[in-house]
């Protein structure tokens, strides 16, 4: 009798739960290229994950510091095997490994950040960070006294090159004499190497340090030398309060919530999306107190223009380092040109190799 009662109660409860939550429970996995660490790329993605974990019926997990070769394939594969419904892989090098796994698990949804390949169950997404980079370039260009900006950059791939170019164009828009010196570290995350690279830029006279790196190492180098810096990924002001002018930052949470919701409602679509300032996926961190209000207003004005589509960052005439015209007057770069960008604009000191 008791057993029967218990069974009935369980049945009723189960039906009630099914009726209440039309959304099915969803397990979401994240693959990060670096440790979540301090304020970097993976940290920004993890803020998105934490926001998603708050949603009803959603559980999340992650694996950090996953190398971009066979290791990543294994990690993604294991998530799929363990019944994760949706997997976000957040580094370019995860593209081919994820594609291989996606073909083996047609019922799992896959999203790859920063690549270009798709499958029926695998989409890709990225943000137009170059728009926020352009804005940070305006700040750097206006604040420099030596007209030399330093840029600590990870790898000479289109994403990074695009960012350097946008930063340079932003700086040149307020200060035509400015040059941007680039140092490659060949690593996404290595605080000591990043800091050393920043120091080498300070030694050649740079007085604003920008970065496409995942640790606040370059910020600390700038603060120690008493010059300014531009962060990246998330607000890095707490690591270098005297140096940090602003930072182009990621805000993944709203987008991740949207994708998770689509999986929950069984209408996931393998799309390619590239939203920008208008959608808030990229933004500028709050300005430091040393940035004059006039400049802040100017930057906010340009930000509004870009968000409304009135201004394009890559609009001709744009010349490359050799002075060859790459974009003619009154033309804007297409998305494919932006995605495959392998040349520096005039005013950048460094090579793309």
């Amino acid at each position, binding site marked *: 009798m008791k057993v029967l009662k218990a069974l009935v109660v369980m049945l009723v409860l189960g039906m009630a739960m099914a009726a209440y939550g039309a959304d099915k429970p969803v397990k979401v*996995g994240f693959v990060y290229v670096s*440790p*979540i660490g301090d304020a970097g790329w993976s940290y920004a993605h993890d803020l998105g994950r934490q926001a998603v974990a708050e949603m009803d019926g959603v559980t999340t*997990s*992650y*694996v*950090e*510091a*996953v*190398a*971009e*070769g*066979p*290791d990543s394939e*294994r*990690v993604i594969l*294991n*998530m799929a*095997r*363990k019944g994760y419904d949706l997997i976000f892989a957040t580094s*370019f*090098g995860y593209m081919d490994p994820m594609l291989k796994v996606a073909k083996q698990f047609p019922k799992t949804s896959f999203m790859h950040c920063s690549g*270009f390949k798709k499958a029926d169950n695998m989409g890709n997404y990225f943000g137009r960070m170059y728009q926020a980079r352009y804005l940070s370039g305006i700040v750097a260009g206006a604040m420099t006294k030596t007209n030399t900006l330093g840029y600590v950059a990870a*790898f*000479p*791939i*289109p994403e990074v*090159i695009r960012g350097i170019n946008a930063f340079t164009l932003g700086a040149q828009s307020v200060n035509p004499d400015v040059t941007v010196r680039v140092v490659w570290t*060949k690593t996404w995350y290595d605080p000591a190497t990043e800091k050393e690279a920043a120091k080498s830029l300070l030694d050649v006279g740079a007085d604003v340090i920008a970065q496409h790196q995942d640790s606040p190492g370059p910020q600390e180098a700038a603060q120690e030398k008493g010059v300014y810096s531009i962060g990246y990924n998330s607000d890095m002001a707490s690591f270098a309060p005297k140096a940090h002018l602003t930072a182009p930052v990621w805000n993944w949470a709203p987008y991740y919530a949207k994708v998770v919701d689509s999986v929950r409602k069984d209408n996931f679509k393998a799309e390619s999306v590239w939203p920008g300032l208008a959608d808030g996926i990229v933004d500028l961190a709050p300005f430091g107190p040393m940035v004059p209000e006039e400049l802040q207003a100017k930057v906010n004005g340009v930000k509004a223009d870009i968000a409304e589509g009135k201004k394009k960052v890559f609009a001709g005439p744009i010349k490359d380092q050799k002075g060859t015209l790459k974009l003619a007057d009154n033309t804007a770069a297409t998305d494919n040109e932006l*995605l*495959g*960008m*392998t040349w520096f604009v005039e005013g950048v000191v460094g090579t793309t*190799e």
Partner: protein
Amino acid sequence: MMLRMRIVKRQEPLGMWGSCLVLISALVLAVMLSGLLLWIGGTSPGGGIAALFQGAFGSRWALEDSVVKAIPIFLCSLGVAVAFRLKVWNIGAEGQFALGAVGATWVALSFPEWPKPLLIPAMIVMAMAGGGLWGFIPALLRQKLRTNEIIVTLMLNYIAILVLDYLVYGAWKDPASFGFPMTRAFSDQAVVGKIGSTNINWGLLHCVVLGAGVWAFFRFTRLGFDLKASGDNVKAAKYAGMPYDYLVMLVMIMSGALAGWAGFLEASATVNRLQPSIMVGYGYTAIVVAWLARLNPLSIGIGSILLAGLRVGVENLQLDLQVPAAFGGILEGLILLTVLAGGLFTHYRIEQRKNP
């Protein structure tokens, strides 16, 4: 009464069973210490260790993953062990691995249409040539200029990785990759396939054959005997007329060729192309494994699978219990430390000091 200990040298080194016991105790100690760390970090130590082993060896998939990851570690380790036998300190497996991958890729990209039975051996030959060259250079410098091979091999690693980068970012870059650094995917003929329905590639067989070959070489050939003898006592070997300088050359080339072979397998079987992220430090892991295994090929095999399993298992630990990735490095460090410390007991024992 005081309990006083002293360390005494053993008359005879510890036998095989004794050594095994020491090794197992060392591993258990390392695992217990890691459990303690997990506990301090707020994770259940039992559950954590279980998740680690589950992820490393606990299912067919996990085992396959561990074996696949062990393959390049094994070959690099076998390579450095050959050099270490002669007390030549080749720290350059990383660079030799890179050049091996470069050599194999050159063949794969230049002759993609060749039939598999021709293409794969050609790739292996070029991989061994690439890795062997990177072993030959420090050996030559050591001989002619009396340079220290530790420093030269270490520095050549960076040069090899730059060579790889140069090619992948430049001449070999896939035009369809939107400017991202990777070569075209290899043709099917250039890919070492998987064994049956498993996830393990035929590289495993290469490992078994090469491991047995190296073992037999040291056990049964005159040259192998010369190498062992010279490694044990350089002066005596020279006095006995063994061609020491020639032997150094030979082991460095062999050592490099084996690491190069690993580079070939990694490019062909697991990545199917050349890209910078192929370099994940197997060449350095190999040195750790070679030492843990005391340079014995069979032990190197076990050590490779153990260390590979550890790295695979730590991912499971992260996924299930969200333990930070750095825990893997700590665990590896603990194992190396306890095993090397345990090595003390092979030649020494601790006894209670008797009162006079």
